[in-house]
C-alpha cells in the first residue's frame, strides 16, 4: 500500500494532525487527529513508494516494547483505518 499524495502531517499545539494541503486533495474536507504511534508510523512511511502491513508491524516493534502479535494486530487495524478514511490506498 501507499499514502495518497496531497496530505501533510502537522503539529497543532503538541498534537499531530493530517490536513489536506496538496492540489490532489483539493476536495478532501476532513482533518485527521493522530495519536503518538500513528504519527510515528505516518512519518516513517509517507515518503515511501509503497509499504506493507508487515512494514508497519516492524516499525512498531522497533519503537515500542510490544508483543509481535499485538503489533501485527495494531498494524493491520491502522492500515485498514487509513484506507477507510482515504489517506492511503492499496
Amino acid at each position, binding site marked *: 500500500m501507499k499514502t495518497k499524495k496531497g496530505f*501533510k502531517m*502537522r503539529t*497543532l*499545539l503538541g*498534537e499531530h*494532525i493530517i*490536513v*489536506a*494541503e*496538496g*492540489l490532489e486533495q*483539493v*476536495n478532501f*474536507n476532513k*482533518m485527521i*487527529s493522530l495519536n503518538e504511534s500513528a504519527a510515528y508510523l505516518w512519518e516513517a512511511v509517507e515518503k515511501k513508494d509503497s509499504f506493507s502491513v508487515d512494514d508497519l508491524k516492524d516499525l512498531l516493534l522497533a519503537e515500542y516494547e510490544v508483543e509481535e502479535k499485538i503489533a501485527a494486530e495494531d498494524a493491520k487495524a491502522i492500515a485498514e483505518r487509513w484506507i477507510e478514511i482515504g489517506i492511503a490506498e492499496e
Partner: protein
Amino acid sequence: MTNYYKVAGHVFGVEIPDANPLCSQISQYEPFTCPAVDSPVFSLVLADSVNDEGKSLVYSGSEESGEPVIRLYSLPDGWISEVAICPGRPISSRLYMSKDFSAGRLQILRPSESLFALNNALMLMFAFRTAGMSTLEMHASVIVNGGRAYLWLATSGTGKSTHSSLWLKHVPGSHLLNDDNPIVRVMEDGHVEVFGSPWSGKTPCYRNEHYPAGAFTRIRRADHNAISRLNNFEAYALIYSSSSGFKFDPHMGDDLHATFEKVVGASPCFVLDCLPDADAARVSSGTLLKMYE
C-alpha cells in the same frame, strides 16, 4: 493616479487611470485611504492587456450556483487568476500576479463588472501576499461589544449575518465591524486582533476599526439554542475552513498553518447551535461576554 490603502496595518497601492469610471465607484475603500508609501506590501495596476501565454491550470474553485468562479493558473514568472460572477457567465477579468504576489496587473474584460473584478483582485492579492505576515482574510460576520470582536463563522447562507443582526437588536452596546471579510492578524505580542476591511459582502459596512478578538464561534442551524467550547482540533478545523489563502502552495500552507495554530492557541473558539431568534443571542452573549466580565 495611485491610491494607497491601509488594511489591518498592511498598505497596498491601486493605480487606476483618472478617466476610468471605476474611480467614482470605489467609495468602500475611502475609510482605508492612507498617505503614499515607498514600499507597499503589494500594488495593483489596471492594464489594457495581460499576457497569459503558457499558463497552466493549478486550481479551479467549486462551482456553486450564485457564487463567483475563480480559476488560478501558473506562469513561468507568476500567476494568472480569472474570475466570473457566477457559473456559466463569461470571465470578468484576468489578473496577473508576480510570483510573490507583490505586483499585479488587472485586465477588465467586462466593464459593467469592473468593481466586482477590482474587489476580487484586491482580496486575492491581499490574502495571498499577507499569508506570510501572520494575517488571515476570513469569511465571517463580526460584532463588537465591550471593546472586543466576536466572529461568527459558517458557510454562506447558514446565518452569520442573521446572528449579528440578533446581537444588534438584543445585546446592548453591539455594533457591526464587518459582515463578510474581516482581517484577523496575530500581533507581535501574540494576541489576535480583528480588523474591518473594504470587503463586506452584500452589507455595506466598511469600518476602519480594530479590536482584540473576543471569540471565534461556528454557527450551526439547530432546533434549539446551545453553545459549547471547541477543543484545539475542532478549533483548528474551524479557522482552517474559514480562511482564504492558497493552502495548496507548500510555502503558503506552512505560513497559514503557523497562523492558524497561533490563533487557536490564543483565542477561545465555540460552536453555537441556534435558531434565528432572540434567545440565540441571549445564549451566545451569556457565555461569550461572561468570559471578560
